[in-house]
């Protein structure tokens, strides 16, 4: 508590938000931003600051505010996150970056680890939604022709017609010539979920864990210039964070504005843990 207090002094403008997840009876495993279940759920404003711990840092804070709604059904907990973004950015070509949002939870109960992605022995569990991943989920991973419709490469030597002489060398196997894929980088594969789940033990240490359960869906409103993203997760995530009804826990947020070249450590963050109360019977 002392840490939270002193950081709040440093960032005098930062309001200590208090997120309350209300219990509902609706099944939340598939909830979307426009669902009626969100109608009466209060929006908790959470202030963000430009990431200030490690270089490179954003020069200005592009996302001063994110509004958070939270509900749970005893099995799943869902968060509806809204923030202003001048334009929608889904990455793709060189130098284009994706709009994204992340929620972070401590893995261990008790006092939370350092907010900057945890520390050795005291990890954090992150749910990272990217507009780029959602596009993958909806339309498939873009081919070069999707990114550069007018491009005309003479040939790809590895795309030769299978004459049957090289046994079993199908299109999938040829992907070993794609270095990111060959080394198993999740980044290089088609994303089947808009949300990556990550476990981190300190800055730059994050690694993607297999995501079979959490879901995310975002809608960009070009008139209001807002993103609304719902991320739902099971309360209990084995090998990850475990949330319980009746618990007073913590969470944190980060937002990246792709069109403002935000990626990696260029992001807006909650400078301290935000309290998360999960209401309802224990």
């Amino acid at each position, binding site marked *: 508590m002392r840490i939270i207090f002193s950081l709040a002094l440093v960032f005098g403008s930062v309001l200590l938000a208090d997120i309350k997840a209300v219990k509902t009876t609706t099944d939340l495993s598939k909830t979307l931003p426009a669902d009626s279940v969100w109608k009466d759920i209060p929006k908790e404003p959470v202030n963000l600051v430009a990431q200030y711990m490690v270089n490179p840092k954003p020069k200005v804070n592009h996302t001063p505010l994110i509004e958070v709604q939270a509900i749970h059904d005893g099995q799943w907990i869902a968060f509806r996150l809204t923030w202003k973004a001048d334009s929608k950015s889904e990455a793709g*070509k060189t*130098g284009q970056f994706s709009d994204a949002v992340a929620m972070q939870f401590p893995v261990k109960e008790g006092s939370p680890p350092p907010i900057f992605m945890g520390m050795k022995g005291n990890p954090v569990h992150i749910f990272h939604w990217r507009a780029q991943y959602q596009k993958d989920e909806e339309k498939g991973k873009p081919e070069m022709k999707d990114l550069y419709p007018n491009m005309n490469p003479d040939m790809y030597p590895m795309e030769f017609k299978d004459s049957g002489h090289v046994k079993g060398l199908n299109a999938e196997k040829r992907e070993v010539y794609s270095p990111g894929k060959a080394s198993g980088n999740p*980044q290089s594969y088609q994303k089947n979920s808009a949300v990556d789940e990550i476990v981190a033990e300190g800055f730059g240490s994050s690694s993607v864990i297999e995501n079979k359960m959490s879901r995310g869906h975002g809608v960009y409103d070009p008139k209001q210039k807002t993103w609304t993203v719902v991320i739902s997760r099971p309360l209990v995530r084995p090998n990850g964070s475990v949330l319980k009804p009746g618990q007073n826990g913590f969470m944190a947020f980060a937002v990246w504005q792709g069109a403002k070249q935000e990626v*990696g450590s260029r992001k807006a963050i909650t400078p301290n843990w935000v309290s998360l109360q999960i209401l309802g019977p224990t």
Partner: protein
Amino acid sequence: MAKVKNWHLGRDMEYVYEENRPKRQWSIVFDLNKCIGCQTCSMACKTTWTSGKGQESMFWNNVETKPWGSYPLGWDVKVLEKLGHQEWKKHEPYRGKTIFEAAEPTETTVHFFPTDEDWMYPNNGEDDCTGNVSHGTHLNLPHDQWFFYLPRTCAHCTYPACLAACPRKAIYKRPEDGIVLIDQSRCKGYGECVRSCPYKKSMYNPYTRTSEKCIGCYPAVEQGYQPMCVQNCIGKIRVMGFINPPWKARKDNPVDYLVHQMGLALPYYPQLGLEPNIYYIPPIHANREYLTQMFGPKVDDAIKQYKKIKDDPRTQGLLVLLGSTDRIMHSFDVKHGVAYGYDEKGDEIVSVPVIEHSYERPRYDSKYEAVRNNTP
């Protein structure tokens, strides 16, 4: 920030990590007086490493025509402009700022992110001369109008900006040979390396959504062979070897000899502060101010040295060894008009006559009643 020794600058400088020199350092020397701009090196690299999806306009090795050519577009002028005016007096350490020292407090380096289109014109400015030759002009040295070819690979820098800038620490420098690699399993495509490498030798692959760069042909190097772009150089202008810092230089090491012993080969844009490990023998007839900006104040001495090679059989010998073997030469010797290259164990891998035998035949062959001429 740590204080590290940068011998290119003749002083200590600031870097994100402590000084940690590899056991040996991968290095290439290029003799720019001999490059013919044939792009065989570019194709050798391309067909070996970057013929896949997302690598369409990726050239880990490229050859650009200076001063008008550049790949990606304007990389050098943009970096120099961002760094701003800096002074470097002859025979003195560099007093200006490096890209690390001049960085804003929120950044690791002074940098820019090339646009997508900037990568799409690798032949921009090719063979373009500085200007038109006006009527009545005669030959002057250095040339009034000039251009030269600048072949470039990643410099596997001693202080890589790409590595310094990666917040995920997905870039590492191998202790065994100093080759700088992007871990393809950990890169998340943030592009901080693309942004920060002043030489723009880290490139983004939109298909794998990771950044990629020259790998120094490490599979060949591990087997004692020179990289593809070196082996296939038509002009025989290149030699790859392991360079030592000046305080450990060995006279019989080909790279040490050219760089330290003779002062013939210089790093390019050393003022940026990366201690890049590709070295150039400057083109002696190009504009001197331009060369000074590119290679630093030692360029005058390097050119003076180059002009003395005609009386220096040892250096002549080493220069004919360039392109004469696919293997990595760890040492060389020149005796009785023959240049020898040796492997790590000291076994001979190549020998070449320093001066090729020439035969003179009479102009008129009476037997065949034919006139000979010099047309090959």
